[in-house]
């Protein structure tokens, strides 16, 4: 024990605290990496399609988990069967995106939201 005390007295400040500096350094580096990761997560658009975030529990169940491979082969003869196959696949997907009633700006209208309605029922929520 005495030997250790003597050894420690002969050490410089850096040598005595290098383990603490190592641990603190690792924590700082990990914090910086987390900050960079969050920055990329938020700016890349990944955050907008991540339904596992808090606040999206109500719609998580409705998210499609289908993994049907509707891929049209990039090679092969372009005959009637190929066109029919393409039409069938394409129509299925086109139906999902053409004429959809998403993102109607009226949903955010002050009248719709009853923002300026005195004693709005929403005020109690």
């Amino acid at each position, binding site marked *: 024990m005495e030997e250790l005390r003597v050894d420690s007295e002969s050490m410089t400040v850096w040598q005595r605290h290098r383990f603490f500096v190592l641990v603190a350094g690792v924590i700082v580096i990990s914090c910086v990496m987390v900050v960079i990761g969050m920055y990329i997560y938020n700016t890349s658009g990944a955050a907008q399609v991540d339904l596992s975030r808090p606040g999206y529990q109500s719609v998580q169940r409705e998210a499609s988990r289908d993994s049907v491979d509707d891929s049209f082969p990039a090679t092969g003869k372009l005959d*009637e069967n190929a066109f029919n196959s393409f039409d069938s696949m394409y129509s299925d997907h086109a139906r999902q995106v053409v004429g959809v009633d998403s993102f109607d*700006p009226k949903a955010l209208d002050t009248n719709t939201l009853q923002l300026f309605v005195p004693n709005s029922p929403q005020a109690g929520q």
Partner: protein
Amino acid sequence: MYKRLIIGITSLVVLSSPFAYADNQSVNITSSQEDLIKANCLGVQSTLNRIHANDALSRVHLGQEYETISTKLMAPMNSRVALAKLNGVDMARTTVDFNNKLDEFRSLYQQYEQTMFSAIQMKCVTQPANFYAALMQAQTQRASVRASVVELGNLVTQYQQEVATVRTQALTPEQQVENQQ
């Protein structure tokens, strides 16, 4: 040295913040409107929260469909048309337009989502004017997202018509008659 390090880390923290504050728009609201916003805004934020969640679901569904249409249907079809030495210039052009519009859709939705998020997170009782400004900005951005969805839908339909045109070039009249029967 330490000062620079602290400034750098602080900048990163600020940049990575998930909160996106609405631009300081000049909004003219009367004091009575301000009182009504203070009274109703918590309920409105609850409604915004539901809209925000449903929008995320729509974004995911539409994004998946757009990706499939672009990468698994349009691109291979263009390839096959080119291999068959048919005129697929219009189809290729529509595919490029579609991909550009898809990038725009992603960007517009991101901006809209961040504004919505800031409106939901805002302390609207103490900042009614800012809350109203964020709401108005979100409405404008939502209209842009909708316009983008409509344009993408139009391009999907346009591509389908162009494939039909190429089909008439590719198939012999006999095959077309057989197909119609």
